[in-house]
């Protein structure tokens, strides 16, 4: 988590996407740093060339 720089308006717009969840002002405030982390993580993922690799499934973990 990082210290938030998101404005209340931006947070409100994001939260409007949350579908059916009405959040109080204090809940919006709590959410801000988590959104910062989420968007930072999404930016990290976007910055990586994943090539043609397919999504992971752990059901095929093999032993030695």
């Amino acid at each position, binding site marked *: 988590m990082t210290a938030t720089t998101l404005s209340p308006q931006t947070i409100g717009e994001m939260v409007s996407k949350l579908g059916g969840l009405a959040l109080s002002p204090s*809940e919006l405030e709590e959410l801000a740093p988590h959104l910062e982390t989420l968007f930072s*993580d999404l930016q990290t*993922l976007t910055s990586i060339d994943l090539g043609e690799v397919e*999504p*992971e499934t752990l059901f095929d973990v093999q032993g*030695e």
Partner: protein
Amino acid sequence: MEASELCYTSLRGLATLIQRQEVSPVEATQAVVDRVEKFDRQLNSFITLQRDEAMLQARAAEQEICAGGYRGPLHGIPIAVKDLFYTKGNQTTAGSKILRDFKPAYDATVISKLHDAGAILIGKLNMHEFARGATNMSSLIGACNNPWDTLRMPGGSSGGSAAAVAAGLCFGSLGSDTGGSIRIPAALCGIVGLKPTYGRVSRHGVFPLSWSLDHVGPMTRTVADAALMLQVIAGHDRHDPTTRTAVVPDYSVALTRDIEGARLGIPQEFYFEQLDAEVRDSVRAAIQTLERAGAQVEEVSLPLSKYAAAAGRIISLAESAEIHEQFLKTHMADYTPDVRAGLLAGQLVLGKHYLKAQRLRSLIRQEMAAALRRVDVLVTPTVPIPAPRIGQTMVDIGHETVDITWALSRLTHPANLAGFPAISVPCGSSLGELPIGLQLIGRPFAEATVLQLAYAYEQETTWHQRRPMF
């Protein structure tokens, strides 16, 4: 033997005493239960103490053993488990007010296995709410405290398990680990924590945080104790389709094998960056100790590990958002603030984000598997810093100020993404007497190798013999 000495005996040591009938399960259970009542007000590690039920179990174990029915090393051993393991008819809160009245109709598979082995369950332990956090500051009964300094956090999410084991309030525990939740508190409290391979131990009857990342494993004071507990809980479970039928080896036999020529992989990227200086020095010294014991050191390259925390958080957010969708609609106000906010953020993760994280996970796993074809284990610090103060939210490491939760979990995520086994063992102490952990990561289903090297290290040092103030 004095009660405090008895309570700090290793699980394996107590098993020997019980088998020889030199200590009875009743005596051992009475000693730890008394100790919980005496000291846990300072630690807040127990959510539920099942004194009467434990004493009944202890008397039954004593009678069975006296009648020649000794079942094995866990028979008559008092243990306690993180409060997200289902225990039939007993409160199972997952650290949340939302589940304060939840009494499961069945035992988790691992609980059944422990009962079958004759272990005595004395209680359920504090944890970060729904296992969604690395500090153990958010729980329905409040923060758990670190036994080495009660003004510091024990780490999480299995913080109660680590604190109780470290303080001699039980002889072993179970935790769960989604991004480091066994290994982080083990490192911060100076105990052993083992996250087995994904599929090695059943998660049936364990309240989920993130299905594809959740693991269950032992938390103990010694490596040999972890081997004994893993022996009991490992194996296929028809109730958990992710468990494998791979043979469960004799982990205790593996401990005594010579490590001469064992190959240690030291990552050249990421794991030794942004470390507290005392952690770096302790881990480097531990590597030298293993070298002196006969292991060989090789450099390995794991450049993608730096992305593991981001991928792990996205996957965990998406999966936990689905798990908690209904509770968020019906019990929004009952979550602790930080857990509620994290779960709400998870509602914003799109399918494409989740799949991108799973694709990155494939690459991280492939990279780790390639490194582990050259070496037997990877050796890293478990946590970059010693236990932070309660209430602390930021920490300075490597000339940067970073968030505490980010710092605590950054080195443990990769093994969860890969699904590979990883252990934390005590390897040092800060100037403030706070424990430091060494992490060994092995090949899938090679828990025996991980335990063998951890045990060899433990035998060369005395860190596991240190005790907190209690």
